[in-house]
């Protein structure tokens, strides 16, 4: 069967083979890790998912890379709570809105967790930088949330 300028079965299969062999080693390497990602599924209905709504890295453009040391800013939002995060070379600086004391837990998919406490202004620091990908859990007087995963 011939279709569209001679794109026949053999040509299609050859192209597919090229595409497949190009990605197969890396895909195989990450498949096990990605399959394990399911264990991070949140089943707690009271936990708000705070989606990544702003990322300064998405606005700077590839051609104008941020200079060394400039902070990347991430904003996660859910209905009652917002988390603003600055990624500095050696630490994360965060701000909860509305402000308030809260337990903040940083978790990575490797299974490490770091717990810090925000002050009454909602300000917190995580040092050193956690591994990647990571996300935050925040337990506040206003509500509880978990953020989207991000790679730093």
């Amino acid at each position, binding site marked *: *069967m011939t*279709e*569209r*300028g*001679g*794109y026949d*079965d053999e*040509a*299609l*299969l*050859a*192209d*597919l*083979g*090229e*595409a*497949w*062999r*190009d*990605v*197969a*080693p*890396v*895909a195989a*390497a*990450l*498949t096990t*890790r*990605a*399959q394990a*990602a*399911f264990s*991070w*599924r*949140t*089943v707690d209905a009271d936990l708000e*998912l705070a989606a990544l709504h702003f*990322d300064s*890295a*998405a606005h*700077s*453009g*590839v051609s104008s*890379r*941020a*200079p*060394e040391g*400039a902070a*990347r800013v991430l904003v996660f939002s859910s209905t009652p709570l917002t988390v603003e995060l600055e*990624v500095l070379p050696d630490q994360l600086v965060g701000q909860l809105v509305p402000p308030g004391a809260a337990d903040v837990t940083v978790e990575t*998919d490797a299974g490490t967790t770091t717990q810090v406490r925000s002050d009454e202004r909602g300000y917190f620091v995580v040092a050193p930088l956690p591994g*990647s*990908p990571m*996300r935050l859990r925040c337990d506040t007087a206003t509500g509880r949330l*978990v953020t*989207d*995963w*991000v*790679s*730093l």
Partner: protein
Amino acid sequence: MEPTLDARARSARPPRPGRITAAVPPLCLPTRRRPVPTVRLQLVEVELVEEVHVDDEQSPIAGLVTAANQGDQEAWRELVARYSPLLVNVIRRFRLSRAETEDVAQTVWLRMVEHLGSLREPHALPKWLVTTGRREAMRHLATGRRDWPQDPQQDVWPVVLTDDEDPAEALDRAERHQALLAGLAELPSRQRDLLVMLMVDPPLAYVEIGARLGIPVGSIGPTRSRAIERLRQTPAMVAYQAGVDELSPSGGPGGRS
């Protein structure tokens, strides 16, 4: 009254082997809101579930997404195995190192875990993966914290994009690869398994392939033809071929090696 409802439930959903898809929730019987014999309905559900596995002509993706969203870990594992090649293809175009590619891909999969329930419909999954993979790769480039490959033996990609290649041809090839991998991911299991096995390098003998898949050697050729035909009809390949038509009035992608 009860027997009548029971009969209606059965006649409304007669067993139709090869027709029931996982995308059709087996619970949307109009009779379900009314007092019905629960035991009988459960029997009907069991029959439907079995038919899903028998039916090898339907794309399993919708069923896998629905099952994973309900907490089925096996369904999730299958989705990851099917779509990781496409996701890697999307991310690697940004020429990240291998370690960076894995981290970005893992971020996308982790995020997918929490967003399964918010997909508008199960078939939105591939588009979500491609869009999110591309965006995360671009963000990674923009953060300026790239770890450039240190050891070329370990970290460099097998070269497919050659520097002397015509950019238009390279772009067409990249789009074609993406469409082929997206199409492959949604084929019925037997067809997908066969195509994957045909791509092993060095090639396997048909006897070996037949033994591994548990199918007669004589059915490999016909299955291969059906799989390729099916692949052509997947939305990704239909869109790719339509795009090619628009760009080159003379016809499809020529000059392929």
